[in-house]
């Protein structure tokens, strides 16, 4: 069916006139109808999707590179006229009056929104279990978590409910669910993709990113959404590039023993060492390097993120939109109030400023490594998707699950998770991290690795 095609293949067939946008949208909607009760991806569907597809009269072009392509978007991206909740009841009836920049760019490119994908409420979590609309389930095993916070987006891609999806990452929210759902997820450099119109969580960390069926697909979407946006002052004017090289000759790749953590299954480590061999075959040079202990990043991330959450979520007063503050769920309450504490006078130096200083040490440590290396590889997550319900009574579940993504996130680095094997029939992810604005090399290495292996072709068997 057309819904299982990659973006690249869909575009090719659209250009040849062998399929239409209606075929794509219709196939996705049928898949949603068949499986969404089980997987729980969509908080809100775009009722006009099929009508929009019927209105597509042309083939994709340079100016409309995604014309007629259906996608799912995480529910923290504002969509004009389409309900946006961030999976929180506080925003249950919020209809945005404008589009986020990412949505505007995708609409301008001709893409069609299928619906808003479930997430951890306010993106606070790594499971989607904190969603006020119920947890999304992992398509590989519906008794397991999809990961989060972009869990709905990851499950939508994995279950072929869309051609591609958009997620956002603060520290692990794209790469984590991509790993657990067996898809490709790119977290760009901080400031590479505009945050305008994205419901803010940690403003110094948040990064929108593509979640796709292949690295080539991620590259196509990335090119559409990346770039300077006057509405987000932190976006960069650096040009957005693409590498078309066919080998990794001259590329130096680092592996860090510190990222093979105690208690990690040997199969997880082996999958990365196996990937290292693939990279060597492709011409890269792989060496071990010493790296800053990732456990320190948990402390830094916890303080910085909660402090920024407390500041960002102060705006929800129920006056101009949404409901009042009694509608916050437990996780949001926890994060807002602990953040208010770490920013409060008397404790700010001890917690917030201390964390921002250790953050500098992480940035400097990565800079030191990238003097001698082009990329770092590691597991995306310490293991495979756990069972539903494990986050209950675990106040630090997300922070611990995302331990391998927190160091690069707090340093603003780009990273991609690509499928790299299975453990007990559940997908594993390879994390490829580059220096700031090093997306070209990250995507090139990921693409060549993916073309060398067969993992992306294995799909979940939803019934």
């Amino acid at each position: 069916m057309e819904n299982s095609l990659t973006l690249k293949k869909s575009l090719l067939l659209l250009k040849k006139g062998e399929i239409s946008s209606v075929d794509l949208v219709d196939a996705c909607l049928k898949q949603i109808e068949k499986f969404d009760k089980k997987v729980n991806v969509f908080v809100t569907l775009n009722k006009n999707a099929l009508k929009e597809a019927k209105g597509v009269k042309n083939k994709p072009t340079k100016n409309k590179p995604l014309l007629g392509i259906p996608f799912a978007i995480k529910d923290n991206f504002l969509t004009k006229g389409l309900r946006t909740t961030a999976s929180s009841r506080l925003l249950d009836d919020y209809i945005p009056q404008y589009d986020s920049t990412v949505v505007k760019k995708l609409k301008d490119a001709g893409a069609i929104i299928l619906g808003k994908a479930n997430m951890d409420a306010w993106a606070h979590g790594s499971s989607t279990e904190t969603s006020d609309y119920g947890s999304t389930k992992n398509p590989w095993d519906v008794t397991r978590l999809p990961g989060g916070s972009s869990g709905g987006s990851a499950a939508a891609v994995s279950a072929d409910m869309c051609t591609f999806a958009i997620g956002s990452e603060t520290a692990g929210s794209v790469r984590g669910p991509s790993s657990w759902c067996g898809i490709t997820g790119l977290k760009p450099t901080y400031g590479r993709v505009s945050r305008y119109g994205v419901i803010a969580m940690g403003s110094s960390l948040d990064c929108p990113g593509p979640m796709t069926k292949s690295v080539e697909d991620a590259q196509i979407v990335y090119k559409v959404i990346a770039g300077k946006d006057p509405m987000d002052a932190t976006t960069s004017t650096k040009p957005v590039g693409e590498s078309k090289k066919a080998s990794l000759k001259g590329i130096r790749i680092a592996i860090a023993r510190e990222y093979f953590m105690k208690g990690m299954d040997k199969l997880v480590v082996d999958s990365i060492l196996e990937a290292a061999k693939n990279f060597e075959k492709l011409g890269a040079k792989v060496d071990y390097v010493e790296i800053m202990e990732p456990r320190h990043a948990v402390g830094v991330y916890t303080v910085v993120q909660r402090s920024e959450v407390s500041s960002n979520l102060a705006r929800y007063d129920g006056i101009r939109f949404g409901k009042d503050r009694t509608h916050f769920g437990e996780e949001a309450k926890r994060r807002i109030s602990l953040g208010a504490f770490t920013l409060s006078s008397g404790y700010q130096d001890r917690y917030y400023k201390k964390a921002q200083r250790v953050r500098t040490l992480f940035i400097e440590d990565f800079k030191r490594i990238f003097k001698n290396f082009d990329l770092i590889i590691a597991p995306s997550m310490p293991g495979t998707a756990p069972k539903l319900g494990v986050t209950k009574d675990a106040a630090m579940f997300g922070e611990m699950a995302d331990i391998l993504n927190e160091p690069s996130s707090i340093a603003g680095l780009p990273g991609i998770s690509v499928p790299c094997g299975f453990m007990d029939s559940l997908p594993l992810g390879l994390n490829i991290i580059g220096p700031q604005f090093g997306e070209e090399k990250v995507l090139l290495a990921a693409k060549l690795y993916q073309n060398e292996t067969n993992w992306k072709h294995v799909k979940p068997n939803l019934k």
Partner: protein
Amino acid sequence: MTRKVFDDKKVKLVAKLSGLKFSKSEISEFKTQFNETLQVVEKLSKIDTTKVKITFQVTGLTNVFRRDIVEKERIFSQKEALSNSKNIHEGYFVVKGVLSGE
């Protein structure tokens, strides 16, 4: 690190600072969880940062300016601006009183 930073009083204080209300069971639950979280965070104190500069902007940007001009395409009409509010009076948002008493 056995000293507990949070007691009931401090949990109630941060709730007040955050404009939130916690139930009795939440106060006791959060107290335990906050102390656990701070134990993880306190491990940072072992790292010497006396000579380390603080990071505020991760890609090194400073002072990003824009021209002070009105961007008409970004302006909501009054109708649009009020469209999500539940409490409107003659074209205005209704807010809660801040001052009380005489």
